[in-house]
């Protein structure tokens, strides 16, 4: 009897549970459908925060595939409207990775490209595109709007370029046609390909074709363009052309041809506008071109500009080596020795400090805080556990690192929005996404740390190599000095005086002496009068 009662009780309980579960399921289904309708209404009413919270709830609770796909799409669009590109990127990636069976697959590809471009994301978005661009998805993507499709090709091209698949990348870049927003970048990348940049087998550069691509990249950007990225690409193209001509001149044996190429190179360096981000690079590179052209005064002038307070956060340790080479070419031995002493005195300890840091047991996620600490105004410059300030400043100005830092700031910005929005706080989306952002941030700090460590190690090596070169020049200088002493010649010219002012082309030019005061309008125009002190033989 007792057993039967228990059995009945169990039976009753099971039945009751099933009924409750069925009711709950029906209720949640109905609630999800209602939430979807409400989210759509909110979206249409431009309450994108409310819409996002609603879509998120449906996406999480609904078991109806149709509702889930709609909610995903609505969620991504809501984030897009809110300017939460990182959050949108994540949802667009989820949809895209679901494949072309997802009803919003094509929209997701477009959204993914838009969000990635807004974030200047060269890692996640191209990687997702690469993952998605295969199997049956390929046909679907290839039938998309040509404008979007060519942008997809460009990002895929750059992705495979970074993976050393140069043949495939060229094919993809070539598919980007004139008029497409990605065309200038695609042309620039093709120029790099023609120059053999990044290719370990170092194919011979195809200069003429590279020139065509770089010029096409530059010509495709309107003169009055105000888009910062496009303006920078235009300057990069000028810089690339200048370096290309320099490289050609360097390897040319024909003196006339070399002169023509160097003139072209210097002109292209001057096409990089003053005060633009790439100006310092152009000045430094122009100094090399002027040196090769034996215009030592101009070369020293360009390097002199880089020592102005305006360029305090630029780091060109090689500039001193070039200065020493110029004086060496003019037989001004004591100047060479002074500069080499400076190089060794400054860069050798710096190199050792950075090598020690790179070999330390710092975790990747500790590198970015270390960089920030090294940049603090009160940071102890003698502290060997910090990155030398000059190097730290140069790192934060590095284009790749700037992008990474901007991405990290975007993570923080969006995380704060999710934390502070009352609408998001009411839904479980807020806490869930904040946790996602935390995880993202942590992971990204690791990525940045890896890049930073590589950068510090690379710079340490570069400084080491500069010290080595300084040693070689010192050796050559000692030999030359010994040779002079043997011939009874004085090796230190302390009678050197200010030289006459230079030729002024016409009265459209102004002449100023430099008297230890940098004027901002004079930067880039400095010249030295250098008189060779080599003897006739």
């Amino acid at each position, binding site marked *: 009897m007792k057993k039967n009662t228990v059995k009945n009780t169990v039976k009753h309980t099971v039945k009751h549970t099933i009924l409750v579960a069925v009711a709950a399921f029906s209720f949640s289904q109905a609630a999800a459908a209602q939430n979807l309708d409400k989210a759509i209404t909110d979206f249409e009413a431009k309450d994108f925060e409310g819409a996002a919270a609603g879509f998120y709830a449906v996406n999480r609770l609904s078991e109806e595939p149709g509702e889930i796909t709609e909610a995903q799409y609505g969620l991504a669009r809501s984030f897009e409207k809110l300017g939460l590109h990182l959050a949108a990127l994540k949802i667009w990636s989820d949809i895209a990775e679901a494949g072309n069976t997802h009803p919003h697959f094509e929209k997701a590809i477009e959204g993914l490209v838009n969000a990635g471009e807004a974030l200047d994301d060269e890692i996640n978005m191209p990687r997702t595109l690469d993952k998605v661009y295969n199997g049956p998805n390929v046909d679907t993507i290839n039938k998309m709007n040509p404008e979007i499709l060519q942008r997809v090709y460009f990002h895929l091209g750059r992705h495979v370029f970074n993976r050393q698949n140069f043949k495939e990348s060229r094919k993809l870049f070539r598919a980007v046609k004139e008029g497409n927003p990605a065309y200038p970048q695609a042309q620039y990348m093709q120029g790099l390909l023609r120059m053999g940049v990044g290719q370990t087998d170092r194919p011979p550069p195809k200069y003429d074709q590279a020139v065509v691509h770089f010029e096409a990249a530059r010509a495709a950007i309107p003169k009055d363009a105000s888009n910062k990225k496009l303006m920078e690409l235009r300057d990069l193209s000028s810089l690339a052309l200048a370096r290309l001509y320099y490289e050609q001149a360097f390897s040319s044996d024909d003196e006339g041809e070399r002169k023509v190429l160097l003139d072209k190179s210097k002109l292209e360096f001057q096409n990089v506008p003053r005060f633009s981000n790439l100006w310092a690079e152009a000045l430094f590179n122009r100094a090399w071109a002027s040196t090769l052209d034996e215009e030592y005064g101009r070369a020293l*002038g360009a390097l002199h500009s880089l020592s102005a307070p305006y360029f305090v956060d630029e780091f060109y340790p090689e500039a001193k080596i070039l200065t020493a080479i110029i004086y060496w070419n003019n037989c001004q031995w004591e100047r060479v020795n*002074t500069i080499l002493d400076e190089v060794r*005195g400054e860069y050798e300890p710096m190199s050792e400090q950075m090598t020690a840091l790179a070999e330390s047991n710092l975790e990747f996620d500790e590198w970015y805080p270390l960089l920030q600490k090294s940049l603090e105004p009160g940071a102890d410059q003698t502290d060997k556990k910090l990155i030398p300030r000059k190097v730290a400043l140069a790192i934060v100005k590095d284009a790749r690192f*700037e992008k990474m830092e901007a991405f990290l700031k975007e993570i923080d910005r969006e995380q704060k929005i999710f934390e502070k929005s009352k609408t998001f706080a009411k839904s479980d989306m807020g806490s869930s996404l904040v946790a996602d952002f935390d995880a993202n941030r942590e992971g990204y700090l690791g990525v940045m740390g890896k890049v930073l460590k590589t950068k510090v190690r690379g710079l340490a090596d570069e400084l080491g190599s500069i010290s080595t070169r300084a040693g070689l020049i010192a050796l050559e200088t000692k030999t030359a000095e010994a040779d002079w002493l043997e011939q009874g010649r004085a090796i230190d010219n*302390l009678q050197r*005086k*200010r030289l006459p002012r230079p030729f002024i082309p016409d009265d459209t030019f*102004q002449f*100023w002496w430099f008297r230890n005061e940098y004027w901002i309008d004079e930067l880039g125009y*400095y010249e030295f009068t250098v008189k060779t002190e080599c003897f006739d033989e």
Partner: protein
Amino acid sequence: MKTPSTGLLLPLRALVLTMAASSAVVAVPAHAADDDAPADGDTDAGADSDTDATDAPADGDAAAGGDTAASPLEKPVLEETIFVVQGKRFLAQGRFELTPQFAQSVNDSFTSHTGLMVSGLYHLKENVAVEATAGAFFWVDERSGTPRLGGRDTDLTVELRQKENLAPERVKLYQFPYLLAGNLQWSPMYGKVSIQDFVLGQFNLYLSVGAGIAGLQLETLTPGVANQNFVELTSAIAPTTSFGGGLRFYFSDWLGVRVEVRDYVMPLAVFQSGANAIADADAPSFDVTNLILAQLGVSFVF
């Protein structure tokens, strides 16, 4: 000649894939025609700096002047001949410049002149221009209270007349209702001024020489009363030469400011007899009059 080796010259780093002051207001004029040869002072400075440069790095000390190594400005100074040759920010050659100016005489002994001038310039070269100037002087007539062309007696003249019943030589009382002149300008010097690195202006100093005519007025001889009627002159125009100089600031390629001082030199006379006799002349008098004007105007370049 020893041929320098280029073996040390290494090529630039490979193309990279990654697309990835002073707060004081300072003015440093430069002399367009100065030191083609080294100045003595500069030479001395050069020799000193060279010595500093040789010593400084070996000590690991800051450069001459007690600077520290933190700033790029504070590196050891190797005496160098460093200069700037830069294209002018604003070119003037072949352009017109129109300058309305306020003018005030500044050497007022017995008469004073206040007026407006208009200067039209054509820049033949960057530092040479031809100029046509027209100006009129005016004051408020004391009796009628209405404006009239011409200068006015100075307080000294009025006081002499009214309190001492005296008058200066008659020729010194000429007034000038208008001026017309043609000039040649030459700018031998230029400079620039920077304010907090925010405003950067160019200026040039110019000298001007020319000739023209000046209208003449002469008060009737009425002791004790000033600014009365004017005598009728046989010739109410006097030839004049002009000399002057000034500063021209350009703030943009179309806007500038001019400050100048100009001396109009006129031989004037009051004859008692003859064809040009003044009706009420009490005695003949002669003078070479200098009308020195301070002028300030805004220039529009086009």
